[in-house]
C-alpha cells in the first residue's frame, strides 16, 4: 500500500504563543521567548537562561482524578492536541467511533520523578508520593494520558530519541499511514520546562551564558554562538491518509512526502557530518524529490559550536551549489528538545502557508564552518511549496522530514 499522508490539524503550546496565529506572528516578527530565570541561578545553574512557557490551568477541563496523572508535559500536550483536533474537525464522537492512534516524542519526566522520590525519602513511605506519581514518572506519560483522555484505540507509543523524538514520532506516523496500518494518528512532541529536567544538561556546560542579553543568547550558525538555551512545551499534528481525510470532509493543510533517519555510530554528544548527511539523503530518496524542489531548510542547529558547524557541512554536501535558504527557529524558541521535531514542522508549515521565511534570529555572521550555507538572517517574504526539517539528538540519532504544501 502506498497511501498519501496529509496533515489536517495543528496545535501548539510554546514560548512563542499558545495558538497558531500568535505563533505565526511571533515567527514573522522575530519575537524571542527566552528569559533569565532567577530560580535556576539560586539553584546553582551555570546558565539561568530558559524559554518561558505558561502552565495551563486545566481545572475546568479535566477532573482532578484524571489530572493527577498528568505532569506538565502531558498538560501542554493536552492543550496542543485539543487545538489540533479542533482544526482537523475531529470530535470526541469521531474518536469514540474510529480507531485513532497516538505517537508522541518525549524523553524525560525528571521533575515528576524527582518530586515522587523526594516524598518517599522524606516520609519513608512509598504511598506518600501519591497515586498519580507512577503515571507521571514514566516517559510514556504523555501518550498514556492522552490515550486515556481522548479514548484512543490505535497505536499508543512514545518515541524517545533525545532531541529527535518529536521528528521520529512524525516519521513513524507517516510510515504507518503510508503502509495502511493506521488511518489517522495524533502525532507530536512534548517537553517539560523546569530546572530539574535540565540541571544535569547545564552541568556539562552546554548552555549559553549570555545572561545579560537573554533574547540574543540563542544564535544558531552565528560566529559568536556559545551554547544552547533550553525550551519546551508541546506541539501536535493530526496525520492521516489523504483518502481518510477527504472521505470525512477534512481539508488537508500539508503533506508529509518523505522521512529519513540515521545513526552516527560515533560520539554520544558530538555529532559528525556523515550521519546527519545520510538522514537528509534518505529523506530525499524516500520522498523521491530533487534537491531543487526544496524551498527551505529548517535546520536542527541549536546554537552550539560543533553541532551547527557539522549540520551546515551536511546541508552543503547534500545541496551542493544550490544555496537553499536555511534558518533555525531555535534562535527564537531555544531548543525545544523532545518537542522540537514536531514544533518545528509546525513553524515551517506556518511559514509555508503564509509565504515568508522567519529570519534566523541573532544570526549576524557565519564562522568558517557555517559560511558554506545560505542562512537567512532577516524575515523575508518567500514562497515555497516544500521544506526539509532536521532534528538530531544525543547518541547520534538523526531524523529528517520532507513536507510539502497542499492546496
Amino acid at each position: 500500500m502506498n497511501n498519501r499522508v496529509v496533515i489536517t490539524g495543528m496545535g501548539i503550546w510554546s514560548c512563542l504563543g499558545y495558538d497558531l496565529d500568535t505563533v505565526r506572528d511571533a515567527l514573522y516578527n522575530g519575537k524571542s521567548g527566552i528569559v533569565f530565570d532567577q530560580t535556576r541561578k539560586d539553584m546553582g545553574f551555570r546558565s539561568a537562561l530558559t524559554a518561558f512557557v505558561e502552565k495551563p490551568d486545566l481545572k475546568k477541563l479535566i477532573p482532578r482524578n484524571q489530572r493527577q496523572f498528568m505532569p506538565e508535559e502531558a498538560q501542554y500536550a493536552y492543550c496542543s492536541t485539543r487545538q489540533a483536533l479542533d482544526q482537523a474537525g475531529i470530535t470526541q464522537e469521531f474518536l469514540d467511533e474510529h480507531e485513532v492512534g497516538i505517537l508522541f516524542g518525549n524523553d524525560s519526566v525528571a521533575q515528576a520523578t524527582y518530586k515522587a522520590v523526594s516524598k518517599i525519602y522524606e516520609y519513608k513511605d512509598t504511598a506518600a508520593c501519591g497515586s498519580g506519581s507512577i503515571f507521571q514518572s514514566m516517559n510514556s506519560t504523555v501518550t498514556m494520558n492522552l490515550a486515556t483522555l481522548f479514548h484512543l484505540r490505535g497505536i499508543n507509543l512514545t518515541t524517545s530519541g533525545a532531541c529527535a523524538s518529536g521528528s521520529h514520532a512524525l516519521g513513524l506516523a507517516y510510515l504507518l499511514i503510508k503502509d495502511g496500518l493506521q488511518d489517522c494518528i495524533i502525532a507530536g512532541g512534548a517537553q517539560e520546562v523546569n530546572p530539574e529536567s535540565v540541571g544535569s544538561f547545564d552541568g556539562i556546560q552546554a548552555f549559553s551564558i549570555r545572561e545579560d542579553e537573554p533574547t540574543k543568547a540563542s544564535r544558531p550558525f552565528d560566529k559568536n554562538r556559545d551554547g544552547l538555551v533550553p525550551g519546551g512545551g508541546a506541539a501536535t499534528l493530526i496525520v492521516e491518509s489523504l483518502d481518510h481525510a477527504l472521505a470525512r470532509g477534512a481539508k488537508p493543510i500539508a503533506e508529509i512526502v518523505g522521512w529519513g533517519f540515521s545513526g552516527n555510530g560515533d560520539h554520544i554528544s558530538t555529532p559528525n557530518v556523515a550521519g546527519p548527511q545520510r538522514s537528509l539523503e534518505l529523506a530525499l530518496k524516500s520522498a523521491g524529490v530533487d534537491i531543487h524542489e526544496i524551498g527551505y531548510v529548517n535546520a536542527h542547529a541549536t546554537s552550539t559550536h560543533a553541532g551547527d558547524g557539522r549540520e551546515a557541512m551536511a546541508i552543503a554536501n547534500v545541496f551542493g551549489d544550490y544555496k537553499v535558504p536555511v534558518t533555525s527557529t531555535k534562535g527564537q524558541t531555544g531548543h525545544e528538545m523532545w518537542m522540537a521535531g514536531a514544533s518545528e514542522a509546525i513553524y515551517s508549515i506556518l511559514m509555508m502557508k503564509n509565504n515568508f521565511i522567519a529570519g534566523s534570529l541573532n544570526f549576524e555572521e557565519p564562522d568558517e564552518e557555517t559560511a558554506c550555507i545560505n542562512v537567512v538572517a532577516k524575515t523575508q517574504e518567500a514562497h515555497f511549496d516544500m521544506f526539509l526539517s532536521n532534528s538530531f539528538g544525543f547518541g547520534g540519532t538523526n531524523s529528517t522530514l520532507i513536507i510539502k504544501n497542499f492546496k
Partner: protein
Amino acid sequence: MTREEIIDQVKEVLAEEFEVEQDVMTDDAVIKDTLELDSLSLVDLVAVIEHTFKVKIPAADLPTVKTFAQLYDYIESHL
C-alpha cells in the same frame, strides 16, 4: 491539637487536594462518595493525612474510616 483544629485542618487540606468545597464535608458524609475517591485516589487521601498530621492510616484500618467524623476520631486517637 483540639478536635476543632483537626476538623479545620482536615477540611482545608482535603478541599484543596480534592477540589471540593469545605461545606460538603459534613460529619456523616461518606468520604469516598463526597470526594469521589476511587482505589487510586484513596491512596492520595492517606498521603494527605500523613503529610498534614504525620498519621498513617494502614489499609487494614481504612474500613473503620468511612465518614468524616470517623476520620477526625482516627486522627485524634493517633496523634
